[in-house]
């Protein structure tokens, strides 16, 4: 085990927040980023079978306890705050479709979404406003945060359960697009109420 690995191990252990490769490199002074990356990988491997794991969540690294020990550690600990079903669904829709406007969320759920639901998600730090869509009305669009990936144990958005299949089967496409696809070529030019969502490229490694 080299000094860099030791230093990274100690820094991540002591840090109050997950740290990115950049943050680690600059914190450790003269460390080169590729070296930091390699050291992180080596460390993650070392810890793989231990009671503590070193994990990457949204490009940031932190130590956490091994998931299989949850039953031991869960007792006496405060339960994670329960999300309402509505909030859970809205969060999933944002995560799988991001960035997405409230109207788009509502069109998928078939029901109005109360502002409170989005507030809860933003307060939890899992959802943030990601700007406005440049269409008439300039609706606010929402996206997930690194804390979201952190909390749900996802390395990146590509880790979202089943997202590849959902994409492949077109279940993330707006209904009208899917309909046109099914009909072969779209004979009737239908207005797309939900414009094509731009894929968030920030976490495409």
């Amino acid at each position: 085990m080299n000094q860099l690995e030791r230093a990274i191990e100690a820094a991540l252990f002591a840090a109050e927040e997950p740290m990115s490769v950049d943050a680690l490199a600059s914190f450790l002074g003269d460390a080169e980023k590729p070296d930091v990356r390699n050291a992180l990988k080596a460390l993650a491997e070392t810890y793989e079978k231990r009671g503590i794991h070193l994990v990457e969540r949204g490009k940031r690294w932190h130590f956490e306890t091994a998931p299989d020990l949850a039953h031991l550690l869960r007792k006496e600990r405060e339960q994670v705050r329960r999300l309402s079903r509505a909030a859970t669904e809205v969060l999933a829709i944002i995560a799988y479709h991001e960035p997405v406007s409230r109207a788009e969320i509502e069109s998928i759920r078939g029901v109005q979404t109360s502002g409170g639901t989005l507030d809860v998600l933003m307060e939890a730090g899992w959802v943030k406003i990601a700007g406005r869509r440049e269409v008439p009305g300039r609706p606010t669009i929402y996206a997930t945060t690194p804390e979201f990936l952190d909390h749900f144990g996802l390395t990146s958005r590509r880790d979202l359960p089943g997202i590849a299949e959902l994409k492949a089967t077109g279940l993330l496409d707006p209904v009208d697009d899917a309909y046109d696809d099914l009909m072969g070529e779209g004979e009737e030019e239908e207005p797309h109420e939900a414009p094509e969502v731009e894929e968030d490229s920030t976490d495409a490694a």
Partner: protein
Amino acid sequence: MSDGVLFTDPPQEESEDWDGIAAEATVDTDALYLELDGWEGPLDLLLDLARRQKVDLREISILALVEQYLDYIEQAEALKLELAADYLVMAAWLAYLKSAMLLPKEEQEDPSPEELALKLQLRLQRLGAMREAAGRLMGGDRIGRDVFLRGSPEGLDIVRKTNWQCDQFALIEAYGRVKARTAPAVHMVRERPVMTLESALDRVSNMLGVTLEWMELRDFLPPHAEPRLRKSALASSFVAALELARLGKAEIAQDEVFGPMKLRRVA
């Protein structure tokens, strides 16, 4: 996507995160159940009904679904339950869809009932996919529930250090400044050729006592005085004259503006 993958029953443990609605868990299919408060809108109810058909949503019979929904709304009405407007709107729309689907094709208007049914099906698929995804998301290893962070991290110390700058010149200049500022100050008051008001008052009243004639102010000034003393004497004598006039000891006269000011004793 393999059949049924999206709509297998979500694992039981997920329901702990679902806020008391848990349609799948609490519902006995055979019993009459009405949970309109629990369903978030008609689409939700439709999806639940569709899942009861236990087939892939892509093969669901929209007609059967429509009938179930309408039955359902009817039952609710029979029980005199308050129905949210959007449930009734959906019921009306579905009733229309149903009738359109039962009519011969030629009489259909655009959009065709097939299109409407297909789109409804697509919507249900999407909602179902998201519901499934939400369940799997909540079932992941969540911090604080499945995995835990360090209990009390020391934190990384960031020590702010100031690199103070100063140079020799600034130092010496500062010392010079202090020395100059605090050197014992000896104030040399220069002597100035002035005639005070008191001496002017004495002088003018003495000179007035000599005669009863009008005298010009100028005549009271000391002769051969240097110009600066003369200026001071003029000012002081003028004030002295005013003072004597105020006390009633002298009269002042001036024939024209800026003319010579004359002074005499009051008899």
